[in-house]
């Protein structure tokens, strides 16, 4: 079964390697991994879709928690969540068949964001099932390129997966000013 695991991590060099290496070494299967910043400075959010039974996912959570740079782990599976993924699709499409493609775009509430005489780019934000259906419908026209961001998720209502424990100011300053969160001038940055 697929689980959506959210890991709130320190935004430090190497944190992605640590997480990726853990999954490889323990043989956990990642379906998708999406990383980005959060409302909290210095914290990134990793949304990881893991395939495995409850025991495996429990191991994933425990192993992630052991990483010092991982601040909090939540399994959103079974929670009431909003789940989304963004896809860009470049479809082969000229004047003759454009109408057909646009019909599909409309039905799926997708958007055309780029147009050329022979192709167009479609953007859609949705749950995976709908994305899969969209891709299936566009295939006959010729999908030239596709990129998917991987799943992101958030629980509905008041509850959050966020980190509430703020770093003390002094540490915050230390971490931000220090080489641990370099601005990108060095080879080991996470951004």
């Amino acid at each position, binding site marked *: 079964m697929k689980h959506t695991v959210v890991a709130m991590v320190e935004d430090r060099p190497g944190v992605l390697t640590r997480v990726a290496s853990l999954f490889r070494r323990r043989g956990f299967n990642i379906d998708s991994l999406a990383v980005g910043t959060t409302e909290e400075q210095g914290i990134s959010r990793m949304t990881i879709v893991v395939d495995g039974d409850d025991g495996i996912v429990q191991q994933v959570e425990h192993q992630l928690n052991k990483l010092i740079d991982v601040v909090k782990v939540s399994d959103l599976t079974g929670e009431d969540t909003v789940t989304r993924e963004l896809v860009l699709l470049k479809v082969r499409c000229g004047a003759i068949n454009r109408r057909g493609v646009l019909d599909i775009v409309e039905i799926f509430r997708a958007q055309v964001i780029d147009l050329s005489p022979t192709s167009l780019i479609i953007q859609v934000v949705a749950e995976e099932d709908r994305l899969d259906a969209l891709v299936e419908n566009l295939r006959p026209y010729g999908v030239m390129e596709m990129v998917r961001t991987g799943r992101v998720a958030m629980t509905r209502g008041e509850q959050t997966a966020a980190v509430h424990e703020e770093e003390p100011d002094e540490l915050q300053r230390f971490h931000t000013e220090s*080489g*641990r969160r370099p601005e990108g001038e060095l080879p080991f940055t996470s951004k």
Partner: protein
Amino acid sequence: MRLSGADIVLECLKRIGVDTLFGYPGGVVLPLYDRMPAHPEIHHVLVRHEQGGGHAADGYARASGRLGVALATSGPGATNLVTAIQNAMMDSVPTLFITGNVARELLGKDGFQEADATGIIMPAVKHNYLVMRADDLAYTFAEAAHIAQTGRPGPVHIDIPKDVFLEEAEFTWPEEVSIRGYDVPGAGDDELVRDAAAIIDDAERPLIIAGHGIILGRAWDELVAFAEKIGTPVLNTLLGLGSIPADHALSYGMLGMHGSYEANIAASTADVVIALGNRMDDRAMGRFADFNREAKVIHVDIDASEHNKNIPATVAIVGDVKQVLPQLTAAVQTGAHAEWVREVDTLRDEHTDSMAVPSGPELSVQHIVTRISELSPEATVVTGVGQHQMWAAQQMTFTRPHQLITSGGLGTMGFEVPAAMGAQAALPGQRVWSICGDGGFQMTLHELATLLDEQLPVKMAIMNNGFLGMVRQWQELFYADNYVSVSMSQPDFVKLAEAYGIKGLRVTDIESVDAAIKEANDHPGPVLVDFQVEAEGNVWPMVPAGASLAETIETPDEVTA
């Protein structure tokens, strides 16, 4: 106070309480070496190979319970440390590994002696750092020492580019560290403790399996109090030996691949297994799927990821054994399981043959280690990996924690000499015996030179069977006597010792064993004894790889593979 990065590193080590540093110099750490004379409180031991330095730090930490520290240069220095780091990782030893790296502007440029030490070592440590500013050194060291020594201890690595040692920064030692992604578990959940106590109170055949966590958590007294209150036998994992004195009435020795018959059968027939501070590893528990399926399992460990990893737990308590054991002791009823204890005693009495010390005339490892144990009962014992290790674990009497120092998880041949060196450095004036394999000894024997330099009076007993004995045993038993690459010609170990300026003794018959041990004990410096033991002795009992503990075999006739 403004200091150079190098001075800050050495100041930090002093604040942490480090007095000994096992290291090896090289280009990028020269700025650090340059400043060592200004910090005489830290004694630098020049080892002969970085792996030796790493194992020495490990042995130092295991013997003393304090942080062990090793230092190496970039590139080959760092990669030479890797075996020792992984060894400390597998056995949860509080250690700090410091490597230099190329200057910041050269990082990632494949310059001379650049290795991605941070990347290579990352999966082999509890945590690691690449420090990019001298300003960050103090906090990083404080955090590293905290992480290495708290919770489930382990190795931490700090990689420092050469020019960071030279950069100046303001030095202030952080009195506290706060890491929001790092919690140190303490007491166990009360409700779970009650659940566990109810199961224990109902048990008819409860059994304790005490592991390394008891020693790491300094909970040996709490273990004995708990065991005595419920009146159950206590088994040890290899690394748990010494957590309950071997001469305690409830101590039943080691279980596992070469555990005693009664221990393995007791573990397979208990109705409640109480695993304390151990990770239920395959060498201890046998085939997981068939480990005592009837038993309820109570698993107490500080590392939640060990729960249900290998063996499902009925009750899993996350916590520090030092705190959880008193909680459990208070919650359980006083018990005595006389009938069950008698049953295990009977098993022991009826199955003495497989672990009996051969009476001669051939010189056996079992006899030698027994005599070392009897003639130096206080000694700290370090071993290599192989048959001699298992015989030492089976036959020697461990009456206190930190008495046995052995490579359990990684099974690293070559651990015996450098780890004993580190242990001796931590225990001046105390006796350290290293039980060496003739194979393993040759992997790191270069540290003989360090022993002499440092006047560390380690007593080394080479169990010279002319074989990679444990591998030979497997080839004999499971590969139809097809010996491939297990027989070794040996150097003259006595001459070798003498070449290093170390006293060498040779023993070829059983009558001379005691005299040699006494002579070694009486000699003030390091001694190497070449015990020429029988070539093809086998360690019994044995749980064949992949079998369950219930399938423990006691003689070669039972081998079916």
